[in-house]
């Protein structure tokens, strides 16, 4: 079953950038199609309280994203649950191949694929994903009540996750490859005061170990970065919190990127190096990486797409 859908504006991604682009493009009567990807709602669906989105003193991340989706739909955005596997930006109309078999053709493309959690890239990590290895403490922490957990990382996310996980776990070992954390002072203080958390400095995760029947983590092997000495730590859960990387797979070979893969846009603009292709949100933003800035860029991208289409029609 393969069909072809044409649209003036194809929005790829359903985070704050994508939905905001949907709102603006719909109001410009461009009848946009938005493809949600494997993570409908984007990164904010993996957190609980959001306290810095204007208009909400406090809102749950998933609730905010459901509201944004409803908003985009109400304005007329067609929202499709599909994943773009392949994107051809070499000629217009641009074409995008969906996992569902649908082929999307588009006069303009707004890339809003955001960022996703980085993984270490170990085969053992891949093997146990969903079976003890996780990148979402708020989703999975509950399953580790009274058990020992390992958190890997040394930034804000790692510290926040370690603190959050003490609500469930009997012990949390924080493995960090340096001997100091790169997190906010207030978080570090809280971490140091928490008796359930034990930092393991100067170590990196060497391997996740576990059972095959049933599949599940039983511990980790960590290696001292200087001496090479191996420490084995029993754990039922391993939470990887080593930061986020831009989700640039679709475009990294055809668009300019910098600072570790972020798509380059023109100054004060969301225009990329290909006319008619715009990029918004965490995919382009190595600096702020916030919901509100992503939404702002989504707005800019839609307005720029509108302008681009109007010029083509002249």
């Amino acid at each position, binding site marked *: 079953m393969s069909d072809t859908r044409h649209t003036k504006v194809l929005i790829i991604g359903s985070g704050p950038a994508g939905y905001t682009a949907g709102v603006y493009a719909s109001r410009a009567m461009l009848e946009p199609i938005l493809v949600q990807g*494997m993570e409908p*709602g984007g990164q904010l669906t993996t957190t609980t309280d959001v306290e810095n989105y204007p208009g909400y003193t406090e809102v749950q991340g998933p609730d905010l994203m459901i509201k944004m989706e409803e908003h985009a739909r109400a304005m007329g955005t067609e929202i499709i649950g599909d994943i773009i596997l392949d994107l051809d930006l070499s000629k217009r109309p641009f074409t995008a191949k969906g*996992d*569902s078999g649908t082929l999307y053709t588009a006069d303009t493309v707004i890339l809003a694929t955001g960022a996703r959690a980085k993984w270490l890239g170990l085969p053992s990590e891949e093997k146990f*994903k*969903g*079976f003890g290895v*996780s990148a979402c403490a708020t*989703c999975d922490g509950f399953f*580790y009540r009274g058990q020992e957990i390992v958190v890997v990382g040394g930034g804000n996310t790692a510290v926040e996750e370690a603190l959050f996980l003490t609500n469930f776990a009997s012990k949390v070992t924080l493995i960090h490859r340096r001997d100091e954390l790169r997190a906010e002072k207030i978080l570090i203080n809280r971490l140091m005061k928490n008796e359930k958390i034990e930092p393991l400095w100067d170590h990196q995760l060497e391997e996740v170990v576990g059972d095959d029947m049933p599949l599940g983590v039983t511990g980790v092997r960590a290696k001292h970065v200087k001496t090479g000495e191996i420490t084995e730590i029993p754990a039922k859960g391993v939470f990887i919190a080593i930061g986020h990387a831009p989700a640039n797979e679709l475009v990294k070979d055809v668009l300019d990127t910098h600072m570790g893969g972020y798509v380059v846009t023109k100054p004060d603009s969301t225009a990329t190096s290909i006319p008619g292709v715009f990029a918004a949100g965490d995919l382009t933003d190595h600096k702020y990486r916030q919901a509100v800035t992503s939404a702002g860029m989504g707005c800019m991208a839609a307005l720029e797409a509108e302008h681009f289409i109007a010029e083509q029609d002249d």
Partner: protein
Amino acid sequence: MAASSKMTCLDCGAVNRVPNDKLGAGPKCGTCGTKLNEGKVREIDPAILAKAMKNDDTPLLVDFWAPWCGPCRMMAPAFQQAAGALAPQARLAKINTEDFPKVSQKNNIRGIPALILYQNGREVARQAGAMPANAIEQFVRTKAKMPG
């Protein structure tokens, strides 16, 4: 042998036998009268799950979820859509792991959403993490033996 499929009523737990050529005719539970497969996701409890797991040769895909899990909530519309697309050959249900914490221990759930596909008394396949509707449908069609 006239092909038929066993399916547990997800409402009362009675085991029904439905001829495969009648699967699409809106079969009802012989005990309580509830439609056996309306193409809708049913919320079930561990007792019903245990029965369906043991008895059904109709594929049953169960979504282990929880209200605090954003990705689970975001996947709900896709899961519903897949339930519509897979009826009348397969059924989709969900179980709340917050209300029934033991069920996750028993099924070795360590992360959600987790989708487990059951057929003929055993776990046929498992998927960790959310998927769009079309991928959920393909998952069931390729991993289960579809009746009829």
